[in-house]
């Protein structure tokens, strides 16, 4: 349903390279593709507009137009900007600690965003790190919400401040803090009522809670599947309560999660944690660069591009490309490809970066195997490498002996080579496709 952005951009930009430099107009066409990709990932319309203005400026400043691979250069800028907006590459800031315990962490958010579940997970996470958290349910509006929080706490192995759900949220919150102080809990996780952001009564309640218990962290819990409304709701919460961070939930689904970007942009606070499953331990510190890749729908293609660019000898790559274009892909070229793949690191890791590629559980492709394949080719004569057709039985036996492998392995390599050659011939006939994809045989 969604094309990968790299593919789209390369289609727009890299094709133009042979005709000389690309123009600003070409860049704008590429930016339109990015706009579409971001909108389809549910990034807010307004955030997209601002974001693209920044990217455009950077792209012009960084001489993307002169780049050999402008498509990839633009993708890199997009990715870097995304990561920046999502909180940067550095380690996420640890949760604040109050000078006088307990530290109150308040969870706020819309109905069904996952506040109670998050309270349980966060409580367990903190406990595993030597803290003594107390979950305090103050959602007195929804039926059985207090009971739910108590049960969640129990499952998570975290203490809860139990009460019967009567009184007011402020009273209950104050009691919970007092209770924590008396019993030696150093963190109170305040699980507040979720409602819609247009609900003034809820916002008043949250304001009163903030004033009453002075939380050191106010964490906005946001559903990763949210659409365009994400900015409106996050903005409404930000106006009334001093948010210090975002927790993104339901990231174990298959949503692109553009809401992460919208919420981060609107609140101006970093995403701190991600909820990644139904189990009580399914929470982890948020990783901006992984999220950037996810929003763009490119697996970690960006990481792949980087690795490829680090490893690929440009001259060799260009020679290889010419060979493909001439439709003369030889064992010599095959060896070059193997060498470059080997330089990129463990193959599973490389393949895992390609979107849509699912490795079998027992994936055996490792660098050692590539080394063996290379050894087989090394044991051939130059003539054999240029013309594989002369490889008869006795030659194969000699090569097996020379490379310390077996004839079977030599045969398998030749089969792999022939498959690859076939594919290269096809690709050679279709100019204009992404060079990298061609090299990787995808």
């Amino acid at each position, binding site marked *: 349903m969604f094309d990968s952005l790299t593919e789209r951009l390369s289609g727009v930009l890299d094709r133009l390279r042979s005709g000389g430099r690309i123009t600003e107009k070409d860049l704008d066409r590429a930016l339109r593709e990015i706009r*579409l990709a971001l909108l389809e990932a549910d990034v807010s*319309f307004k955030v997209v507009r601002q974001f693209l203005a920044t990217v455009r400026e950077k792209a012009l400043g960084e001489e993307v137009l002169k780049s050999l691979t402008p498509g990839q250069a633009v993708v890199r800028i997009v990715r870097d900007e995304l990561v920046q907006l999502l909180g940067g590459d550095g380690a996420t800031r640890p949760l604040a600690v109050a000078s006088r315990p307990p530290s109150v962490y308040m969870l706020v958010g819309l109905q069904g965003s996952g506040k109670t579940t998050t309270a349980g997970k966060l409580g367990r996470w903190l406990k595993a790190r030597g803290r003594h958290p107390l979950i305090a349910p103050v959602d007195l509006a929804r039926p059985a919400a207090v009971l739910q929080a108590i049960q969640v706490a129990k499952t998570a192995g975290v203490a809860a401040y139990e009460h019967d759900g009567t009184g007011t949220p402020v009273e209950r919150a104050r009691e919970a803090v007092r209770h924590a102080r008396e019993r030696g809990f150093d963190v109170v996780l305040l699980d507040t009522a979720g409602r819609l952001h247009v609900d003034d009564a809820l916002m008043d309640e949250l304001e009163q809670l903030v004033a009453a218990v002075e939380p050191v962290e106010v964490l906005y819990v946001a559903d990763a599947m949210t*659409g365009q*409304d*994400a900015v409106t*709701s996050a903005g409404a919460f930000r106006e009334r309560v001093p948010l210090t961070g975002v927790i993104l939930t339901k990231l*174990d689904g298959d949503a692109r999660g553009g809401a992460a970007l919208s919420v981060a942009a609107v609140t101006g606070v970093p995403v701190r944690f991600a909820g990644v499953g*139904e189990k009580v331990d399914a929470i982890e510190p948020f990783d901006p660069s992984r999220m950037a890749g996810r929003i763009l729908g490119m697996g970690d293609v960006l990481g792949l591009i980087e690795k490829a660019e680090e490893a690929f000898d440009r001259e060799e790559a260009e020679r290889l490309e010419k060979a493909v274009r001439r439709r003369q892909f030889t064992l010599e070229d095959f060896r070059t490809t193997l060498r470059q793949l080997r330089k990129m690191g463990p193959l599973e890791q490389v393949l895992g970066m390609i979107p849509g590629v699912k490795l079998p559980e027992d994936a055996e492709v490792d660098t050692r195997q590539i080394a063996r394949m290379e050894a087989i080719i090394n044991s051939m004569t130059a003539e054999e490498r240029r013309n594989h057709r002369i490889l008869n039985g006795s030659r194969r036996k000699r090569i097996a002996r020379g490379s310390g492998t077996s004839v079977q392995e030599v045969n398998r390599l030749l089969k792999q080579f022939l498959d690859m050659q076939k594919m290269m011939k096809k690709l050679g006939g279709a100019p204009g496709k992404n060079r990298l994809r061609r090299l990787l045989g995808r």
Partner: protein
Amino acid sequence: MLGRLRDTIRNGLRKTRESLRERIGTILPAGSGGREVDAAMLDELEEALVLADLGAELAMELRDGLEEKVLGKKVSGPDELARMLEEELLALLPPPFPEVRPESGPRVTLLVGVNGSGKTTTTGKLAARWAREGKKVVVAAADTFRAAAVEQLVVWGERAGARVIRARHGADPAAVAFDAAKAAAASGADELLVDTAGRLHNKKPLMDELAKISRSVSKTIPGAPHDTLLVLDGTTGRNAILQAREFARVTPVTGLVLTKLDGTARGGVAIAIGRELGLPVRYVGMGEGEGDLLDFDAREYVRGLLEPAGGAA
């Protein structure tokens, strides 16, 4: 009922900016005798559609369709342009499936959806609504996974005067549904509502479990479930399409419930779902009160879409 829906939407929007119509109005001043529709005007329409979560591709498509019809032509005013778009959108919404009513025994409605979309609340509201209409309602609390989901439903059941069939936390949900189907049939109930645990549609074991629940009610009551409602959080973006596709794959989904529409979210993704999967919207959830589940009214909904969503603030 319609007036109420309109009021609720309007109230929710009281503080938000001018409506799209008004925005078109500034481009097309009344009494100016009509002006040619230009690209800027169409851009605004497209923006409104994106903000309503219809998706960028569909929004562009609609814009292009409209452009072909009106570009360079005079339209009499902002209303005409909005009306044309309204008709285009209405045409994309599939009509509801014909109601299936069993000749004897209870009619069974299964509620499915992802976590936090509002299944339990919707189940409670439907129970209250049907009980008010004088029907005998039984509710199966088959969400045995989420903490306190059963208790939440019991509160709703007491309010509504509906019997709630429950089992202990962690019990097999298909068994709960089966028992409830037997109880409903034996007690001569008119309606059986089966609330299920929220599950993300990309988790195969959980989706298989749902198929099993669906099958288990049909063992006691042939033809059941007569209705399978997919409950969608109205604030959900593009992912709702994937949700609908996967849920419809494992259960016979007959319609959608759009919840949480009393905020600024427009739930425009239902248009995309209607077009791609042919699934109609049946109910709209507007709040927390018992009466806040309304029959879906396509025209009201489409007008709501064209009100500005908050993103333009």
